[in-house]
């Protein structure tokens, strides 16, 4: 099954009124293995860096938002195929 990496889940409390962000770095290649809780990417919201943890262990099958690309709050950043 596939789990989405939800950008809204890591939204900082002091950025309630901000609606967009930028992915600055991915740390896992597509097809790479991740452990739950490990940082998969770094996003920037109003110039504040936020590390995004993997919600589940599995394989990163898709980077939905690429490096230096913008996204809206709630957009899916990537997808993890979990071991059943």
């Amino acid at each position, binding site marked *: 099954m596939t789990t989405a990496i939800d950008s809204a889940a890591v939204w900082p409390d002091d950025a309630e009124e901000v609606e967009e962000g*930028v992915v*600055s*770095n*991915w*740390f*896992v*290649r597509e*097809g*790479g*293995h*991740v*452990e739950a809780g*490990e*940082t*998969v990417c*770094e996003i*920037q919201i109003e*110039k504040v*860096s936020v*590390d995004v943890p993997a919600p589940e262990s599995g394989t990163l099958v898709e980077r939905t938002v690429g*490096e*230096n690309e913008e996204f809206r709050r709630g957009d899916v950043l990537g997808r993890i195929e979990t071991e059943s």
Partner: protein
Amino acid sequence: MAKTESDPGTAGADRELTMSRAMVDAIASEMHADEEVFYMGEDVQDYGGIFDSTQGLLEEFDRDRVMDVPISETAYVGAAVGAAQAGMRPIAEIMFTDFVGVCLDQVYNQMAKNTYMSGSAVNVPMVLTTAVGGTYNDAAQHSQTLYGLFAHLPGMKVVVPSTAYDAKGLMHAAVRDDDPVVYMFHKRLMGIGWMPAPEGPKTPVPEDDYTIPIGEADVKREGSDVTVVTLGLHVHRALEAADELSGDVDVEVVDLQSLVPMDTQTVVESVEKTGRLVVVDEDYQSYGVTGEVTARVAERTPDALEAVERVAVPDVPIPYSRPLENEVNPQVGDVVEAVESVT
């Protein structure tokens, strides 16, 4: 070994780190291994370094091991020299390499010479980290590399990583060295959110410790027609130029990595193969790295050297204006032109 909270880990080749995270990875590892290792600098504590050089360290270590200091480079670089002579292994950061002017005596007369001046009664096992380079319109007092200045003054080793893998290995080597090492990291390569890095510096980085020997160059791309010798950011610009030229000219790219000691042998061997040399540097041209590399090749293998070209910052202060800065800081196109001019 414990990792910083922000560390994404590096299990296998699936994982890639930015240069800043690889640098912090090595510093944290050395601090865990040896309690005499500590970091001091301006805004390195809660801020994590303005170019992320200490990002996450404070989550793992106390404030007396990740120390913010007052704005007096003379005072804290001097303190680091004293601590090193007393047996500690300090890492002191000069926020911008441009600021070395205010503490140069502590760097080139004390840190670099005290082993000699004391007749080896003391040695100075410290690392002096500093951010270098331009490309983001920070003008003449915050955009220099000063590679040549540090490399010219005897008594200190000088390293310049160009990738995350190199950054970690060179940091381990620098901290473990019993003599002073200047560790110059290029801002544009760190992978900071607000200053996107080019393709290339983010690499797979093993979790385990490893060292890259100080004094060894790294052939980043093999080629048979022209040797491009460079360092720092311009390794990536040279690689991009080599890609553009592939099919027409087969370019070898040598990353110096260490300015002191310089791996003359690797450079000479490459020029003996290609016969043509282009040296690319983000420092001022005159009396600098490009002249030194060219001279070493000319001294050792004059018959092999058929053609040579230098690409560096013309001898002017770095302009603030974007088009003017781009004009003086060697671009990919400048490297392409230089390679074509020697073939």
